[in-house]
């Protein structure tokens, strides 16, 4: 298998993991936010930094 195909295959796996993770995170975040019920909460769950 060429390096390009290996890179693409790894990229596909990483993308699938990221898709599942993003969906899970957004759903969980929305659930948490609904549970808490304030807009302020959103800033607290911002996960990137």
């Amino acid at each position: 298998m060429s390096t390009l195909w290996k890179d693409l295959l790894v990229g596909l796996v990483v993308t699938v993991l990221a898709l599942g993770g993003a969906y899970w995170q957004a759903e969980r975040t929305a659930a948490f936010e609904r549970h808490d019920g304030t807009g302020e909460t959103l800033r607290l769950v911002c996960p990137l930094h």
Partner: protein
Amino acid sequence: MPRHWRTPTVIIVAGCLIGLVSFGLRSSFGLFTEPLSAVRGFDRETFAFAIAVQNLMWGLGQPVAGAVADRYGSGRVLAVGGALYVLGTVLMSQATTGATLALTGGVLLGLGLAGGSFMIVLAAFARLVPEERRSWALGLATAAGSLGQFLFAPLGQAFIAGYGAVQALVMLSFFVALVPLLAIALTGRGEDAEADEPEVSTREAIRGAFGHTSYVLLTAGFFVCGFHIAFVTTHLPPYLHDLGFSPSLAAWSVALIGLFNVIGAYTAGVLGGRTSKRLLLSGIYFSRALAFLLFVILPPTTLSVLLFGAALGLLWLSTVPLTSGLVALMFGTRHAGMLFGFVFLSHQVGAFAGVWLGGAIYEATGAYDAMWWISIALGLGAAIVHLPISERRAPRWAPVAA
């Protein structure tokens, strides 16, 4: 102990797991602001101050941790850094005053992050992974670190809901206890990679790097990266709230940034091994400026917010494998950890400026408009300063004949 088991694959998998765990836990700290403050009686400013100290210590500690890793190997630094990270997290959960919170969650955790996370892994990859696969590995490590948020943010929420903030923080820290174990795979200084590199002392390396125009331009560019990311991370949700959007839309836009960040970081690593890194970086910063511009001038809609999140995600940490790859290209791997560290320090200073200026401008004008335009100007500036960067070994670091 025989070293033959430390193949590039083992090194890459271990390094990616370290990035995932260390970056993942770090990304979940925002979750603890409210519940931990409620349990301990902190106000929001006290918690924010501790996190600000943490960011500062992370930035300041990075060149030092990098220099130690360059001298004694990344594995040892990752092991000690990982232990400090766990200790800082556990003690932070027990802090009862603002001062102890700043010392544990700020100083100790910041130093743990400097030694036990991402940048040391990148330096290890630069040394231990063959040069032809280096950019790909740097991209994969960046993507893995970004994936960590998807694991730890929901997990953190579940733990807080089930066990309370104090217990949840202790439980999450157990994951970081894996870092010293995984670090065993990243021991060694990559002497083979350094074989054709000239002997340069630490002092000479610092002087030489900051006397090399391309390194200074790269460092300046990474300041802008930190500025953009920290500004958007901190101020996008309240900005969307001001525009009247629902919090769940902001949640989805943040998730889209995370999703496309993973894809963008990995793709940048792959492309960086096949084409010009400086041109890719210039294109990324130009595209950021364009994304900000379109976001500001077009009427805000649900679709435009989501598209902005996706576009920004693609351009988010895609700068990391390219920037770190350029440092290794210019100076080789002997001082890679320290020289990455100085570039990262610039990123952290930019992040501080982005968060602080965003708040200051909002307080002064009641809007973020000026901040968006500053971000556009800085993006264009960064796109320009990357163009003259020389993509070859710096003169003092030219390979020597064996």
